[in-house]
């Protein structure tokens, strides 16, 4: 555990000191400021708009952190051979990979905690300035939505770890992770569209089969999106919260297990 933790800690430190993170924070702050301004353009549902935009900002900043810093934390190790310094110590390849994953997850956690707390400001401002008695809002649901943004980012971190375990350079890992994220974001909607047959469109069985495979292979990213519930103050079924969290743990375990298997036999010439 010492080995895993020491890799996680050094990964986190290198990530949090990266200058790109300041850029991401500035973008997030500008988006929060824009949220406060944009909400004034709406006649109704101002709090809903503020909640939606604030949560989207936290999620977007977290994703940028993972794609531009998280992927690079692996990339540099493999491209520039910083990994020599790590695995020439009593650290196995599996411990390295898991440590790296935990370090990236810690980075995502700090971004979500910092921006999640900051995101309260535009929501409070919109609530104060434009008070509507009919507006339903619950801070508990808001914070559950923030926690689920973190869980989503943890799942994305496991995908980055999986791709980094077998790709030869960081750009390929970045592209694959981004593609997996985009597919994972939309598979549920596409599958529902096919299953419900609302549009009565004839779809080839091969296409249906491919969508079904993509639904199970790629992570269902949209399942972690609780923005609508938070914006409308809708209650969330406790079983949904538990099952989604378990799904995330299951997905991460599988991704890391495959990644570890691939990485165990990898050479660093």
């Amino acid at each position, binding site marked *: 555990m010492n080995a895993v933790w020491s890799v996680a800690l050094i990964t986190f*430190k*290198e990530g949090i000191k990266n200058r790109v993170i300041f850029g991401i924070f500035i973008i997030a702050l500008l988006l929060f400021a824009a949220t406060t301004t944009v909400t004034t353009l709406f006649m109704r549902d101002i709090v809903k708009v503020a909640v939606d935009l604030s949560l989207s900002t936290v999620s977007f900043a977290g994703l940028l952190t993972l794609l531009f810093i998280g992927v690079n934390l692996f990339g540099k190790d493999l491209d520039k051979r910083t990994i*020599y310094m790590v695995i*020439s*110590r009593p*650290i196995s390849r599996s411990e390295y990979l898991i440590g790296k994953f935990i370090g990236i997850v810690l980075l995502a956690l700090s971004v979500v905690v910092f921006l999640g707390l900051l995101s309260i400001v535009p929501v409070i401002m919109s609530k104060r300035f434009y008070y509507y008695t009919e507006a339903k809002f619950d801070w508990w649901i808001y914070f559950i939505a923030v926690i689920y943004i973190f869980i989503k980012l943890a799942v994305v971190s496991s995908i980055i770890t999986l791709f980094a375990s077998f790709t030869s350079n960081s750009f390929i890992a970045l592209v694959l992770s981004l593609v997996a994220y985009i597919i994972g974001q939309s598979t549920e909607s596409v599958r529902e569209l096919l299953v419900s047959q609302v549009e009565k469109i004839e779809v080839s069985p091969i296409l249906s089969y491919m969508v079904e495979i993509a639904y199970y292979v790629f992570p269902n990213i949209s399942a972690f999106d609780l923005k609508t519930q938070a914006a409308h103050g809708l209650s969330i079924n406790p079983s949904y919260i538990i099952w989604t969290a378990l799904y995330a743990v299951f997905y991460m375990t599988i991704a890391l297990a495959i990644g570890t298997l691939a990485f165990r*036999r990898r050479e660093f010439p």
Partner: protein
Amino acid sequence: MAVISFDKLTKTYKTGFRKKKTALKDFSLDIREGEVFGFLGPNGAGKSTAIKILLNLIFPTAGKAEILGSDVGEKEIRRSVGYLPENPYFYDYLNPVELLSFAGRASNMDSLKIREKTESLLNTVGLWNERKRAIRSYSKGMVQRVGLALALIHDPKVVILDEPMTGLDPIGRKQVIDLILKLKSEGKTIFFSSHILEDIERICDRIGMLVNGQLRRVIDFKKEKLIKSLEDTFIEEVEKAGGLQQ
């Protein structure tokens, strides 16, 4: 007992769809306890390949390598090994204290010991006053010296250095030579590769000449007096091996 042992080691790399390159062929060598062994060979001779196999960074195609009687695949053996890679690259945004702290923790050292060793090593390599600067602002020579400190933080029995003089100015080279001699006086076994023949001759007990992946000759300076200079002897061995094969 040999501290480092290569036994009929062969390493083949895939260089294309059906192309292969043999970097090491039937390479056998024993390095004894407490000796300074210099590994000599032209570029691409297979020196780094042999060293990387010792650190389990790559795996042998055939044969085996052992350190202190344990297979190099066993991670616990790396607790006794310090390694400086060729052209080392470290985390850009961290400073040497953070790097050494990581290396110490990874080797199960306690915090107090890590702090003590960090101070003494950074003083030895002349970086104590620069310790708070991020590595990315360091020169090549300074990075090399951080690498040396990293290799020694956990007080290893075996020290493996891949081209430790690369990128160093004459003062830096002298510091490395003094450090190697100090490690030798502490009873450590040192295995290092270098192109700088003058340094090799000065500090090594034995040297091995590797050409085209094969060990051509081992010279024991205590038993053997070279008739020609080391440079001429080396060139002769390369020519005997049929020159360099690309």
